[in-house]
């Protein structure tokens, strides 16, 4: 692809033709705040935090929707840009619990915990520490980055009930900043189209068809929308923070989605898609995202081989189990044996099993559970 050069804040920046100004800046490690932009999604231009000044262009274009062109001269922090950005952020804050965001305590090392006495008389439900996205919230990050110290506007709320109809995650519209990442995800990425923006003006809201609870809609519970929410408006019902993450392949089907198991106290507590691979690029389905946690640690799960005895199953070691199988198999002719493999195994496992059936056992009776 053709390369272009533009100047951002006096710095020469190389970019690919077709990139937006925001992408070009990000590629060059120049920070431009944004909340509605997500690399997985089509440019939107809603939050107006990414406005910039461009020479020979009128007004303050949003960099996320402005194509970068060769020779363009961009300024990302002029007084006009800063004023507009701060106004947009102040406006956004006025629709979101914001007392904690501009509280000094958040910035010093001494952070609040849920049991601290609040210095700002913030309602419990409005505190940072009770938000599932606390410390991972993109709004917090922007507020900190821009050094927002106060909000001159009164808080305007649209009190909505929390939609917790879905078994895995919930939507708290009271924290929603209407960036439309979720609705665009559901339409552009998953192609389901279960949620869209509804109503106009200040009444705008993320909604299902007919404004029904999510679980009564065509939603497939994949949680992709939740994974793209920059704030705590969509969050898993079981929100436990992992201590570390372990990369693995989803065991549910043969697609082989890469995932990061979030582990705490040696238990899987949360899962997210791994973006750096070409199989799922971060996406997961309902089973991978919400099923694996339960499945990995379930009490019914076999962790040791069992041998069938007269009075039920007995635990054994791998060595003796394999020996037992080998003994039994050797009593049959190849054509008397059939091998069934599983869609829950990886492609590699399945490959090895059919190889074992054909080459070791000498049978063509090899099949797989996913040929319904």
């Amino acid at each position: 692809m053709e390369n272009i050069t533009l100047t951002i804040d006096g710095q020469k920046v190389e970019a690919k033709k077709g990139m937006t100004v925001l992408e070009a800046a990000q590629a060059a490690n120049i920070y431009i705040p944004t909340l509605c932009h997500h690399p997985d999604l089509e440019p939107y231009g809603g939050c107006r935090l990414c406005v910039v000044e461009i020479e020979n262009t009128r007004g303050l274009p949003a960099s996320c929707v402005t194509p970068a062109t060769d020779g363009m001269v961009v300024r990302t922090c002029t007084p006009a840009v800063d004023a507009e950005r701060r106004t947009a952020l102040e406006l956004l804050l006025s629709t979101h619990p914001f007392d904690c965001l501009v509280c000094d305590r958040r910035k010093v090392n001494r952070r609040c915990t849920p049991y601290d006495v609040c210095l700002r008389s913030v309602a419990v439900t409005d505190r940072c520490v009770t938000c599932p996205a606390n410390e991972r919230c993109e709004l917090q990050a922007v507020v900190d980055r821009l050094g927002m110290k106060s909000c001159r506007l009164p808080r305007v709320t649209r009190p909505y009930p929390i939609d917790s109809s879905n078994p895995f995650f919930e939507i708290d519209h009271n924290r929603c900043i209407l960036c439309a990442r979720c609705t665009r995800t559901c339409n552009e990425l998953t192609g389901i189209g279960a949620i869209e923006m509804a109503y106009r003006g200040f009444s705008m809201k993320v909604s299902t068809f007919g404004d029904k609870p999510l679980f009564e809609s065509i939603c497939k519970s994949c949680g992709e929308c939740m994974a793209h929410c920059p704030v705590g408006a969509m969050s898993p019902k079981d929100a436990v923070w992992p201590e570390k993450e372990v990369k693995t392949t989803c065991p549910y089907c043969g697609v082989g989605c890469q995932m990061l198991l979030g582990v705490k106290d040696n238990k899987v507590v949360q899962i997210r898609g791994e973006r750096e691979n070409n199989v799922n690029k971060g996406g997961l389905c309902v089973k991978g995202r919400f099923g694996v946690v339960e499945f990995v640690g379930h009490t019914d799960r076999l962790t040791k081989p069992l041998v069938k005895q007269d009075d039920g199953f007995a635990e054994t070691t791998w060595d003796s189990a394999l020996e037992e199988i080998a003994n039994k198999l050797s009593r049959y002719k190849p054509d008397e044996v059939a091998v069934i493999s599983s869609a829950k195994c990886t492609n590699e496992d399945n490959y090895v099993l059919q190889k074992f059936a054909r080459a070791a056992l000498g049978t063509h009776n090899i099949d797989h559970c996913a040929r319904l």
Partner: protein
Amino acid sequence: MNQGKPAKSNERKIFVCHGTGCVSTKGMEVREALEKALAEARLQDIRVDFTGCHGFCEQGPIVFTEPDGVFYCHVGVKDVPEIVESHLRNGQPVVRLHFKDPLTGEVVPLFKDINFYKKQQRIVLRNCGRINPERIEDYIAVGGYEPLRKAFTEMTPGLVIEEIKRSGLRGRGGAGFPTGLKWSFCQQAPDFPKYMVCNADEGDPGAFMDRSVMEGDPHTVIEGMTIAAYAIGATEGYIYIRAEYPLAVKRVRIALEQAEKKGFLGKNILGSGFDFRVHVKEGAGAFVCGEETALIASIEGKRGMPRARPPFPANSGLWGKPTNINNVKTLASVTAIIANGADWYSKIGTEKSKGTAVFALTGKIANSGLIEVPMGIPLRKIIYEIGGGILNGKQFKAVQTGGPSGGCLPASYLDTPVDYESLAAAGSIMGSGGMVVMDEDTCMVDVARYFLSFTQAESCGKCVPCRVGTKHMLDMLSNICCGKGKPSDLDLLKELAEQIKVGSLCALGGTAPNPVLTTMRYFRDEYDAHVHQKKCPALACPELTNYYILPDKCQGCGLCLRACPVAAIAGGKRLVHVIDQEKCIKCSTCLDVCPRRFDAVAKASAEKIEVPSEPVPVTAKKPVSVASGSISEE
């Protein structure tokens, strides 16, 4: 195609207006009654027909006769026998149904003498109210589809674009972009197919210009659209009409069908080998869907939300293909330009704004209705000569142009010429043609609040400044109107307004602060009075006004007492009545019912009028000074 021509020019005809206004005041029944009465009176040689809107809807149902040009207003079914007997049979027009000038009281029998029409120049509206909009023959008889024939047979697409460029026509949808230039962009776009879209969404409250054209002369629009399609090379077209305009939808559909039958639309138009099909898309009535990118999204079946440009629709519009979008009036002008030539058109108007502008003139004005005037005409001429001045001898205060996101201009701007540049310089916009006249009783803060409540509710919600910013502005204005405004609100309000203007994604948010900014600029004293003195100088904001019954004027007639909806008035026979300020809901009923000759109810803001605390005997006949001095109590 001569068979469509109405017979001789001296054929006697009687037309009943069937615009939406006149239909709602039972114009259709009047026509049926006329047909019946004429048949009974054996006057079958007089043709009864209907037309689209005359633009003078408040006078409806309107009936007029040809060739004598007599104009009747407020015609009811009961008036029909008299019209038939006296006028049509005996040649004596019915004087009591003539138009009476609301200012002079003068009776004006003939259409051509009515000031409202006399001072207009009708190009876009040239056929509205003149022809039957449901008969293509009538349109052809007045020269219709000749421009199309001319364009298709005598001109190349390039020449058509050149002609439109030379005419100086600018888009009438609001932004005023040069139409010929826009067409050339779309013509040069390399992709295919191309689309031609007519923007008939018209969402401004109180505006009915586009609707009237579609209801009164749909073929003009279709013809202009087909010429545009030919020029840019579009093979498919959409007319986007809001579903709240059922009559316009119906007449446009009829017109499309007739035009296709006659070979002016569809396959191989006039044997040229050029195809053009037009679909009608009914919109669900969101104001923002008039914005071109939102309109495109809406046609595509998506939520009507604007997107950033570039890419402009000329390169990537409907279904990602080159698309040209024009307003109804723009297209109606195109037909006239091709018919009469660019030179003719460019002589009308000003240096930079050519042609005519159509306005829906409303408010506190004597003649309200639809008007068409040459660009550059001063506001004063529109308001005082065509509009007939302010009602009830009140003082002019402001005029708002450009619909809900236009600005309010004070009396000192009355000589501003109406054109794109001059209005913009004054802080207003041309918009798509709303013009609201306000008198001394209008509170400018309240006006700003009203317009903002519209734009806030109609904001698509996509971008933060417009969705949230207008909400805060509206809250502040509501507070100011209630006397709860803080001095710091005024600076914040202005700052927000300016940031919303630059920061919004589309022109809805980009222009929504205009009413606030202009009223703050020209009527700052009213804002200050509301905030600092808790006073509404126009006595219009209910929370800041009180009603008092003046003890030196009240005659104790009891009219107000009986009319008050919340029984807030105490009184009795020959007693001075007293309003309980706690109970009063400031509905103004007492003021309205108190007889003019008594004039005993007064309004006041931020001042207390001394009145008795309970009813006392009437003293009104006594000298004023004695009465008020002796009665008032603390």
